[in-house]
């Protein structure tokens, strides 16, 4: 378990040309897995998540000099990752010329055929339930359920008010509960 470096220290080192690469390596070590899993839960497929993760960190590298300290570093990176996921899913939907629901079915097929899924039957069923949700509800549910993020942090990521997020989250949970109860 590597020692987690404070975001302020990473940003400070990044401002110095000499320690910029070192700061970015620290940032990668601290956030690469969190960003990866955030993406993976949205796109399901590992290779897609791998490509998007790399794109996200390239953007972080390019835009970090202009990063404003009024936002937290990790919520800023989550916002970039979230936007990349939404863009990817929209492109996939346009490329396959299918509706959003069909994309969810496609993701379910990906989930079913994925060799990188180690969950049990209940966990698979939960993932299938999550894939029935709209993208925004999936985002909110994943960040709340798997990452235990506060509504305020989720609000910074998705740009929605806390109240709307709460309503969206409870709606998503009810759908999932109903899904889990309705099917074996």
């Amino acid at each position, binding site marked *: 378990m590597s020692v987690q470096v404070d975001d302020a220290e990473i940003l400070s080192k990044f401002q110095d040309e000499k320690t910029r690469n070192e700061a970015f*390596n620290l940032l*990668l*070590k601290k956030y*690469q*897995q969190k960003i*990866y*899993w955030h993406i*993976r*839960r949205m796109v*399901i497929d*590992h290779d897609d998540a*791998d490509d998007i*993760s*790399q*794109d996200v*960190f*390239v953007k972080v*590298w*390019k835009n970090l000099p202009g990063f404003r300290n009024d936002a937290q570093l990790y919520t800023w990176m989550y916002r970039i990752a979230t936007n990349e996921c939404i863009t990817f899913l929209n492109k996939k939907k346009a490329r396959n010329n299918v509706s959003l629901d069909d994309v969810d079915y496609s993701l379910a097929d990906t989930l079913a055929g*994925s060799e*990188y*899924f*180690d*969950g*049990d039957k*209940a*966990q*698979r*069923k*939960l*993932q299938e339930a999550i894939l029935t949700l709209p993208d925004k509800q999936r985002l909110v549910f994943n960040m709340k*359920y*798997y990452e*235990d993020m*506060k509504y305020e942090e989720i609000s910074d990521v998705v740009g929605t008010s806390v109240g709307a997020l709460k309503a969206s989250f409870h709606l998503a*949970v*009810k759908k*999932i*509960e109903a899904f*889990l*109860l309705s099917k074996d």
Partner: protein
Amino acid sequence: MGHREWLDEYPALKQVAEKQPFTVPPGYFNELENKITSAIKLEELKSEKGFIVPKNYFDELNSNIQSRIKIEEFVNNKATGHAVPGNYFDDLSGNIESRITIDGFDAGKGLTVPENYFDELSSNIQSRISIEEFVNNEAAGHAVPADYFENLEQQISARIFVEETLNQEEEFTVPAGYFENLNKAILDKTVKQDKVERRGIVRKMFAYNAFKYAAAACLALVMGTGILISQITNPPAPTHENSFLHKQLSTVSTGDIQTYLQDDVDPSETQHIVIDEDAPANDANLNSALQSIATNN
């Protein structure tokens, strides 16, 4: 898990283990850092714009493509079409039949020609060529005036004579080195002389008005003096305007009259005649003349 109280409201979801169900390939996260670093380097290389195109390439690209398309179309047409003259195939059948007919004539034996045909053929061809050339010349518009060729010899002879005459004029000779010295002589008399004269300051006398008035005054004085002297030395003959006798005698000098009167006339008689005749006379002059005669006698 202080934030997980909400799960209590959803028992089915709560029963699902909170384990991460997704997995990654072994050692994936160890490689991810290198992948991201490589991706960043690749992105930076992409932004360096290694490839360039010639100046105005994209401005001219459209016209270049259009030209290329036209060339390709032209080449394809030549390769596949081998174009023929218009109506070639319509006339082909008739041409072939004509050719067969001509060949049949060539191959045929026993065909006859008019008598002496081949003897006259050469002269006929020559005549035909001359006619064709004449017609062609006229057709081409190279016409000559009427009787041009009839007068041509005479005109040429006259022209030769004129040319020879003109050439003879060139046989007039000049002294050796004349033209070489001519230029120098002209320059000596014109340009160089002017240069010498221009060395001094030229003042125009008539530029002064006083000189003009003085000259006029001198001229008037000389003329006045001359007239005065001539008046004194040769007094004019007295004019006699009253009678024929006066007019006639006015041309006779006073000396002649005095001589005549002294030699040929009696003074008393003369006075009587003059009074009797009641001729007009200048009494004062006559009396003075008579008195002078009397005193001289």
